[in-house]
């Protein structure tokens, strides 16, 4: 899932959805030169990673940050944990040289 987030467009989408709340594709592409098709592709990747969800409102598809608290919390902890794994290996390289 972390690979799904490396792209700056995806990061911007997550940030926009967390600060502005639920948005349609139209709203999400309003002030960018990214195509709706490209944004949809990114949203699907984020959905796959469990970070956003969508619902129908009439003809429009509305996207929002996946609100399941535990999911976010556990994903966050995975990231923290991985960061410490990396740091431990740097420390190892430093003291075992």
């Amino acid at each position, binding site marked *: 899932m972390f690979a799904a987030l490396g792209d700056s467009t995806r990061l911007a989408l997550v940030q926009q959805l967390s600060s502005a709340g639920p948005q349609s594709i139209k709203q999400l592409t309003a002030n960018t030169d990214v195509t709706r098709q490209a944004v949809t592709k990114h949203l699907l990747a984020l959905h796959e990673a469990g970070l956003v969800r969508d619902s129908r409102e009439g003809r429009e598809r509305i996207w929002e940050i996946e609100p399941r608290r535990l999911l976010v919390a556990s994903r966050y902890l995975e990231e923290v944990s991985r960061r410490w794994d990396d740091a431990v290996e740097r420390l190892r390289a*430093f003291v075992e040289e």
Partner: protein
Amino acid sequence: MSTDRIEKDTVLRAPREKVWRALTDATQFGEWFGCKLDGPFVAGQNVTGHIVPTTVDPDVAKLQEPHRGFPIAWQIDRIEPMTLFSFRWHPFAIDPKVDYSGEPMTLVTFELADAAEGTSLRITETGFEKIPLERRARAFAANDGGWAHQAELLGKYLTQ
């Protein structure tokens, strides 16, 4: 599953005193961790500094480069010689547009013990439940670029 803490256990093939210095000498800490601290670690005192890429690995250093100069402000908690070192910080505080100073901090603790092959190290970080969920949601998105590739490169480096 706890969503408030992480715990890491490892054994380092190095004397305990060397590991202790790598953790509690602010200059040494900065070298492997990837930061430059303005002063020594003193229990109960704050220390400031900024991100400076690690000297341990050039590939990782390249990934830390975009964050170079970003300010650090940690609160040193306890220093119990050769045994325990702890401090509080703002986890994932790498967005230059955000002022983290008013937000809750997590507590990072390093504990050392003798081991047959060297020194055992336990790292715990606690207090994540106090970090706003929205901040947590953004953090793992924001960090991907740097840390994801870093793990991969480190693996490559270590097996060379």
